[in-house]
């Protein structure tokens, strides 16, 4: 799974660092536990302004998960997307 977190001015102001922190925290805690799908990988990339906020007002923070754009992203939303994928082999059964 590839996550891009925008750290442009708008997104930093509206909490991009909080999202980065919660993803790092997941990597160090729940994702180290047994039961994670062995095929799952998490690659978090910090990116410059992706330009969403210039197209439309009030969309920050912006996070891109496997090429899907999440506007007004919240840490809980992004964390749950990550965990659903990391444990998908258990969930689907």
């Amino acid at each position, binding site marked *: 799974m590839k996550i891009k977190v925008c*750290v*442009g*001015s708008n997104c*930093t*102001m509206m909490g991009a660092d*909080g999202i*980065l922190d919660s993803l790092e925290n997941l990597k160090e805690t729940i994702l180290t536990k047994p039961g994670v799908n062995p095929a799952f990988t998490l690659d978090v990339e*910090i990116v*410059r302004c992706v330009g969403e906020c210039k197209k439309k007002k009030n969309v920050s923070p912006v996070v891109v998960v496997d090429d899907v754009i999440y506007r007004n992203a919240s840490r809980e939303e992004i964390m749950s997307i990550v965990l659903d994928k990391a444990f998908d082999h258990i969930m689907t059964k």
Partner: protein
Amino acid sequence: MKESYNDIINIRRMVFADIARIAYDDLDLKKLGDDTYRLIPGEKAYYREDVFRERAVIAERLRLALGLDARTAAESGPISEGIENVDVDTRVYTPPLVAVIKIACEACPTKTVFITDNCRKCLAHPCKNVCPKNAVTIEKHGAVIDQAKCIKCGRCKNECPYHAIVEYDRPCAASCGVDAIKSDYLGRAEIDADKCVACGNCIQECPFGAISDKSEIYQLIKAIKSGNEVYDIIATSFAGQFGALTTPEQIFAGIRQLGIKEVVEVGLGADLTTLNEAKEFIEEVPEKEPFMGTSCCYSWKLMVQKKYPEVNDYISESSTPMVYTSHHIKKNNPNSKVVFIGPCVSKKLEALQEHVKEYVDFVITFEELMGMFVAKEIEPSEIEVEDKITDASVTGRGYAVGGGVANAVVARIHEVKPDMVVKTECAEGLAECVKMMKLAKLGLKNGMLLEGMACEYGCIGGPGTIVTSSRAKKSVADFAKASPFASPADNDNIDPEQKPR
């Protein structure tokens, strides 16, 4: 910054960006009411029980951001009331700088031990058995504490096998190291101005966002727009605050794009503070003074002044890094204006004091600066810069992290007197500062260098910061390492005459 309080932080920052936009675009302040609809659109409540209250609260936040006082429900008239008084390009706000927005305060109960519905009404009822005041009775649905009898010892809480008993204080009061939060006649929080040292911790901790400081972001922008030469002195904790990909050099360049003439690190002044404090310690301790306290954190100094006046003389006489840095600029540019940008609320108060106010014209926080970047659509991470910043030494830049000041002073003492043994103690958080000073007053810290920081983790944990302390700590360390000056004595930006011998 309390990073898990997303919505509160975002509301606060949106207000700064909005006021900055109004100032830059020369919009009519009389139409400020429109902004409450822009910031809180629609008719569905998102933050509170109804949209009207959300708008009323944001209106008071906008007024505070302009430097006005927060009003109670009895006082609130039109949002633009008195607004002409702050539509200027010089400092106008007056204390109190930290205040409760009464219409946002939920009047949380003060310190209480109470039994939640997790109580199983068990047969053993240890809560009742261990209560030294016989305040617990077993009623129809479970145990109940008679609040009039309870002395909040917490014994019942510790005994309950179901964790059904909780003990809590209102978050503002729990976070206050100097016990300055009292209640008004409606049970809402009220700040005791005689005790408050403007550290800003309660601003960060209130889960309803009901405490705020005043801002002078509007007047600063007007000062820039009226053609003043405005210099920015930026606190040592700035590295890493404006996004994970923004370098310190890009932050400086971004600030210049706001119309600021030049930016100087407050680390330069920190180097002078280090040199002076080291000299003072060598000369005074322990012969003339039993111990010495550092002088850079204004809330710490104010706490000692107010609570321990009898030992106030043992706080170093050196000026703060902010004052030294501003001196440095005003000496060569007497007609310029200086804005201090930092993580700190108490610097706003320090800058109102005699002997400081003529040097520091404005004080804003990193959050407020971020609002200016957003208003002007500046992306610091995309600016190309080549020049390196070389205003401060390694240890001067280290002031931003708890323990950094003592570390700098001791390193300097050892340059002068290599064999001198200096014991230090660092207190982070105002409550810890109070404890340390209490012991110092009793003579238990004699011979020591005492560093006091009103914020946990030091300045990087300040109420006006943007990123988490752990992230900031790393950025500050990297930036310190990049300094060309190993010792403050090597800093060739400082006039040799200014350096103590």
